[in-house]
């Protein structure tokens, strides 16, 4: 668990993580968010739509980024202000995605960190996006 202070962060810092989307954890996600769309839960339906297998929820694919932001860079002292993503391709269940998050800019005036992220299956880009995190300051009164 990284506990960086804002002034310890630098542009270009990178964090990496690999995540395997198993049948079981995709089913858990489907139950948790109550999204049992057949593209995620029915092999026959997914194949009929042209996919090799059921595909992982896009927001599940993105959610791994939340863990990297909150525990690696910027780390546990930060919160997410905004996050945006683009899905570039399906993530079939059983895939392992390699994630990379990089600090793109720092805004000291408001202790904000701009980051870019990408996820790949092998060399194939499946997700990319940007996030803005900040370091909440104690409110004095």
């Amino acid at each position, binding site marked *: 668990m990284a506990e960086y202070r804002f002034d310890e962060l630098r542009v270009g810092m990178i964090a990496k993580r690999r995540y395997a989307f198993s049948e079981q954890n995709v089913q858990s996600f489907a139950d948790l968010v109550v999204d049992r769309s057949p593209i995620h839960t029915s092999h026959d339906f997914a194949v009929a739509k042209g996919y090799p297998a059921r595909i992982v929820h896009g927001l599940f694919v993105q959610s791994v980024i939340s863990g990297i932001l909150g525990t690696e860079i910027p780390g546990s002292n930060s919160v997410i*202000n*905004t996050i945006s993503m683009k899905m570039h391709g399906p993530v079939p269940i059983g895939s392992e995605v390699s994630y990379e998050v990089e600090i793109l*800019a720092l*805004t*000291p*005036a*408001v*202790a*904000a960190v*701009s980051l870019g992220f990408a996820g790949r299956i092998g060399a194939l880009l499946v997700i990319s996006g940007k996030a*803005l995190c*900040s370091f909440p300051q104690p409110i004095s009164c």
Partner: protein
Amino acid sequence: MHEKILASLTPVFREVFDTPNLVLTEELNAKDVEAWDSLNHITLIVEIERLTGLTLTTDELVELQNVGDFARLLATKGYRG
């Protein structure tokens, strides 16, 4: 007085606060915009730095009372809109 700066800032404020019809005036402040909370304020500063290419400081920001002050600060730092 800073119409050109206000015009260039308007799309940023509208996007950050998700308020497409927001009209920037020099008197406008955070109390006038429902979505102008602490998190969106951070996003606003980041986007304004990105737009202007300027680096702002905490000491400069705490002095600001309204959008007019913001425009004047940007002008003193060389931004012309």
